């Protein structure tokens, strides 16, 4: 593999890991409630913006990051409690529309609370690129990849081993049955939004040093993350990661070898082709793939 193609792969993996982190948030909420939360990109933005402003006001970087993640978690809980929770008897489509409204509201609030400018956050371990067989990778990209892997491992443990995690899974399979065996679905809903918001904020603070952050940076990330989640199989955590990395690599390779003007087109055409063959996504539930 030439240094050039290795560089394309490195770039693609970084972007892909970012998409994967956003996609994971979509999958958590989908698993717990069947809702596709279109405010997921806004959680990423809130994480990045909070960390950037807290750091700029003189707070130490780790503290700023912790506070930002916490703040996003609270926003997630509030969204679940005051918007989605109130309408929980409505059908899923209504809830999805509520999340679209919430994303607009959060973007508007961000313009007022912060501003319309672009903000930056320093990298966790410097800007000096690491050289690898002729390709260069930013240390922050390695952080993104490592944290993505760690998050997936923790989520598998959480949903496989803990009571709350199992309760969340049970609710997603059959809400009525879950209620009958004594699971409080309101807590499950709260937990899923809180968790997804925290995850989104982690993505936000990790990528802010690479891509910067502004009040509207959640829109595109949310869309790409959603695409990645669908590609990998909505609801599957390994699927979210595979989907994210695949999408990132597709974009990067298309830009490098074909045409940068049509890289998004190429990536999405490939995505459509994959979904035609595997409607449930690469690692999605096989039930919908049954012929």
């Amino acid at each position, binding site marked *: 593999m030439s240094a050039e193609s290795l560089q394309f792969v490195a770039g693609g993996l970084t972007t892909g890991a970012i998409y994967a982190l956003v996609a994971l948030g979509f999958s958590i909420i989908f698993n717990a409630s069947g809702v596709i939360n279109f405010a997921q990109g806004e959680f990423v933005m809130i994480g990045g913006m909070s960390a950037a402003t807290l750091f700029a006001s003189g707070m130490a970087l780790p503290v700023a990051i912790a506070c930002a993640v916490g703040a996003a978690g609270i926003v997630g809980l509030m969204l679940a409690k005051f918007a989605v929770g109130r309408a929980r008897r409505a059908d899923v489509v209504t809830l999805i529309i509520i999340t679209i409204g919430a994303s607009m509201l959060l973007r508007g609030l961000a313009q007022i609370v912060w501003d319309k400018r672009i903000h930056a956050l320093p990298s966790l371990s410097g800007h000096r690129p690491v050289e690898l067989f002729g390709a260069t990778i930013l240390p922050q990209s390695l952080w993104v990849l490592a944290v993505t892997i760690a998050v997936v491992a923790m989520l598998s443990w959480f949903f496989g081993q803990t009571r709350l995690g199992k309760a969340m899974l049970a609710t997603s399979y059959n809400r009525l049955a879950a209620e009958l065996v004594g699971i409080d679905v309101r807590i499950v809903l709260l937990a899923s939004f809180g968790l997804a918001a925290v995850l989104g904020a982690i993505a936000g603070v990790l990528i802010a040093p690479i891509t910067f952050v502004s009040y509207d940076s959640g829109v595109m990330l949310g869309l790409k993350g959603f695409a990645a989640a669908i590609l990998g199989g909505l609801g599957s955590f390994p699927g979210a990661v595979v989907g994210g990395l695949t999408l990132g690599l597709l974009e990067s390779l298309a*830009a490098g070898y074909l045409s940068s003007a049509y890289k998004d087109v190429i990536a999405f055409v490939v995505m459509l082709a994959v979904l035609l063959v595997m409607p449930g996504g690469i690692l999605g539930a096989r039930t919908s793939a049954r012929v």
Partner: protein
Amino acid sequence: MGIIDRLRPATSLAGMVFALMVLGAGVAAAQEPIRIGSILSVTGPASFLGDPEQKTLEMYVERLNAAGGVIGRKLQLTIYDDGGDAEKARTFTKRLIEQDKVDVIVGGSTTGTTMAAIPLVEQAQIPFISLAGAVGIIEPVKKWVFKTPHTDRMACEKIFADMRERKLVKVALISGTGGFDKSMRAECLKVAGRYGIEIVADETYGAADSDMTAQLTKIKATPGLQAVLNAGFGQGPVIVTRNYRQLGITVPLYQSHGVASKQFIKLAGDAAEGVRLPAAALLVAELLPDTDPQKAVVVAYKRDYEARYKSDVSTFGGHAYDGLMLVVDAIKRAGSTDKAKVRDAIENTHGYIGTGGVVNLSATDHLGLDLSAFRMLEVKNGDWALVK
């Protein structure tokens, strides 16, 4: 018969009122205000243009009035906010012309709102100074339409002139897909040949892309590459600059005037070192040598604006300053607000020094700026430095 009888007192009363008005008009004419109309995009997506423009116009009209007005008459400013909507801009322009009966119009923050106003001002024959960017506003020349901001074609020319001087002829172009980026890319491609520049690569990236290493890797592998030009606006150019250093590309990198603010250096950090870009004199007011003809004007405007509004000065507010002052200068020379005379005076403006540059208007040039309006800057030690 009876009707006429009853009307008689009414008509005579009307006659007296009319006579009074005619008598009064002679006195009032001296104090009749000079009516300046303006349509600006103060809210909406282009508010970053309209907001400083409004603030600038209000501040300077206030100042001129405090100093006794122009040719002995006060200025009366009427501003309408079109919110960036061309249809609203058209309606408000109509209102300025028909109801407010303005003498001159300064405004049109965006190219879209300006283009909507042009047919109306041309028809009503009112001098109009636009604050928007596109070359199309003044090309072809329209009798009543002028503009103050420099164009993206001039930015391309400034950059290419600098490249030619450094003997960099094989240039790669990388640009975003936004309106600003696209327009500048097209203008650069158009004028490159005139400066002997050969565009050897032409890559693009999406407005919200987070990684441009793929495009830059491709550019890096282009044989004979001597320089890279990034036509862009927003966060894209910052990511390009960082990726550029990450990949260890050593040929000079040029950015556009779209990122000419301290914000760019702050975001790109060390990666910005050595980057060159063209910028208006206003951004480097303090750096200009004392011999620079523009120094006094830009320093004064910057000081006034920042003292009053406690926010950083922008070139957009500067365009409004230039528009207003061109009008004031022309009215003084015309000695009246007769629309045709004011128009002719504007067109004959020569050697007027504004924030955008030294303005020399003529019957064939309704912009009146040359490449000296732009200064070539280089990032050195985390700050701007004037080239040469």
